[in-house]
């Protein structure tokens, strides 16, 4: 009885700490200022010099693209345009290639969906494998289980360990 009481106390304290941790995540963050905005929007754009780097991270020596593009970005932001409009202006000027993530439309939507599809398909396959494994216990395995049940788990673990060591190179 005492053990049950202390267990429930422990779980209560886990729950309280979890609640505090989750609640604290809901506190809103401060708004970003202008220079931070340039950094945030700059993350959505690529440098067009062909270095495959995000605009605010491209620092290639003598890069012909990043400095003028960053100036352009600062100019757009200083007019008070919304982030999406700034990005849209860049797309109009440079094409979809200026976006650091593929545009979420048409064929390019597949880029965003593929990892999710892979996860769902993989999960489906894993589930199928598990179901297959659990559906039919082969006769040989059944016999082995019966045999194993005659020995303690410790003895079996030790035998398995011994077998592993003996066959190890």
């Amino acid at each position: 009885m005492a053990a049950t009481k202390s267990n429930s106390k422990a779980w209560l304290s886990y729950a309280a700490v979890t609640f505090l941790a989750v609640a604290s995540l809901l506190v809103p963050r401060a708004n970003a200022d202008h220079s931070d905005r340039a950094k945030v929007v700059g993350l959505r754009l690529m440098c067009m010099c062909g270095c495959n780097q995000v605009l605010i991270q491209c620092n290639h020596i003598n890069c012909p693209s990043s400095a003028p593009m960053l100036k352009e970005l600062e100019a757009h932001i200083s007019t008070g345009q919304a982030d999406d409009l700034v990005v849209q202006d860049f797309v109009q000027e440079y094409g979809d290639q200026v976006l650091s993530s593929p545009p979420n439309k048409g064929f390019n939507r597949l880029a965003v969906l593929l990892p999710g599809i892979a996860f769902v398909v993989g999960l489906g396959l894993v589930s199928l494998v598990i179901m297959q494994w659990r559906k039919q216990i082969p006769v040989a395995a059944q016999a082995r289980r019966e045999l194993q049940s005659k020995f303690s788990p410790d003895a079996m673990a030790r035998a398995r360990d011994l077998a592993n060591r003996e066959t190890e190179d």
Partner: protein
Amino acid sequence: MDLFGSFALLLAFVCALYAIVGGIFAVRTRNPLLVKSARNSGMAVCILIMMATVSLVYLFVTDNFAIAYVVQHSSRALPTFFKFPALWAGQEGSLLFWSFLLSIYVFSVLWTYRSKHPELMPFVGIILASVQLFFLIMNNFIASPFKLIGQTGPGGVISWITQPDGHGLTPLLQYPEMIIHPPMLYSGYTGFTIPFAFALAALIGRYPGEKWIHLTRRWTMIAWCFQSVGILLGAHWAYAVLGWGGYWGWDPVENASLMPWLTGTAFLHSVMMQEKRGMMKVWNFWLVFITFMLCIFGTTLTRSGMVNSVHAFAQSDIGPWFLGFLGVIFAACLLAFLKNRDYLKSDNQLDSLVSRESSFLFNNLILLVACVAILSGTIFPVLSEWFTGQKISVGAPFFNKINIPIGLMLLFLTGVGPLLAWRRTSLESLKKNFGWPLLGGIVAGAIAWPLGWTDLFSLTCVVLSVFVTLTIASEFIRGAMVIRARSGENFFSSLIQLTLRNTRRYGGYVVHIGIVLVFVGISGQAFNQDKQVEMTTGTKATIGNYTLVCQAFDSTQGPNYTSERVSIEADRGTQQVMMLYPEKRFYDANQESGTMVAIYSTLREDLYVVYAGRSPDNDQPIIHIYLNPLVKWIWLGGVVVVLGTLLALMPNRAPVLAIQAASQPVTTLGGQQVIQAPVHSHGSD
């Protein structure tokens, strides 16, 4: 020497061809002399490739500018130290270097098992020789590093000429790390050829049992360790050299190295299921096949110019050759699998969803999804152009968005997996093993939040890192306590004994701790700060707790470059902590320039200073200052990963104890039989 190198490569090609044809006849006729002859031919291939490689290094060191490859990648002024990395600076040399590293592995395998496993080794020899043959075709006929420079004279007569000097080595490679990073990464890529060859050989030869896994376990771990070190050194090189303040930009070449690492990691985990329970046989074969194919695919990406990359130093039109080779490998694997799949039936079934087996399944699923996500992001620009005709970009924000949650799931499984028992885990055991670590993680999160860890992913990373560390620590402590109770030794020596008794298991835990450190380092990214300032002598700039004072701006002359250098004093509070010298070098031979970043690194943060060039308005130096927290933890994590792998590679210290314990007569305690067993709380891994 160029003739010697060319001839050695040509002879190696002939010997490889013989090793394959002779090997096939040996397998068919079972003639022991033919088996030996094919094996010796395989070893001769290795020696000849090594000789060709040494001869190319000699040509670099002696400044032989009659060779086109030497002219392109070296110069008289290049320090001898950097004439070694010049070997892999270009297409031809890096392909030869690949052959060279592969030949070291192949020779080691053929020599180690020369009188063992007679039913398996002839198949292994044929497969290894086939892979070597492909690279020798490249080395001899497509991208020979020994080509002379020719000049067509009057009447169409070609005469060979020697250039007075070379074009020099690309500045990006003139760093000490570049002597270590590519060999490490290439050793990883080439190393996966060994488990691939054994797996395919076992499948074709229907080699019984899990022996091929036992045989290749150490080879796989060595390749995996090289790959890990190579990736981390590459990240460190990008951090210290490219000067953009970060270490991982999801560049296609970086991704190419990460993908086989992910599938290799999945393989290292899932083979345990086959070893312990005889399960996932098909899966393991395909994992190792895919890992090897990704290694080849990575080389295709790096070398073919298929995708834009800042790292692709040696692009050319060899892509179709590699794609063709990939096609052949896939066809061979598929055929072998279809023909012999009946031999891959599982011995056991899953007893419970809450078990080590299921955790490995999910670990494999997450690793494979990460790989698919990276692969699709890497090749999507190419696919999009094919299907829509429009060019698009896939940059770091896309990869981060997808891979950060995946990484956190993996981190969670890193803690959970090892503490679940094989077959099934009871609720009591779950509570016992996970209760305190979970509470510790949540408390760490609750402490971290007011300290400024407000970014959701960073906070989750802290919580999980503490959780995983505590689960692993509890495993060590629990085991050591049992040994201490039994042997009476102190806790520390019990801990060492415990680790050395099952190096594979506890080495694996150490690797997991290394991975946790890497994750902690990555989580610091959420707090990065940076600013760009123009500085003249006496100008001050502040970032975080640091004040930077410009002391001087001067020009210096190096052995093969001229440098512009800024001397900056870094102070924390009123105390000077370091002088930093960010510089920009201009190399005379190839008229290229390179950045030298100055870093003051502590466990807490890195003060990272880049001289970005002169202002076009007033000619003053522009300094880009970054404050990157916790970066050092990543490199520290890398060291721990290597130490853990080395530990796991060591043989168990006291196997005799296990045999003794198993053969000891049982003693009787209160009428019940008690067996004295070595300490293993959840199986041996």
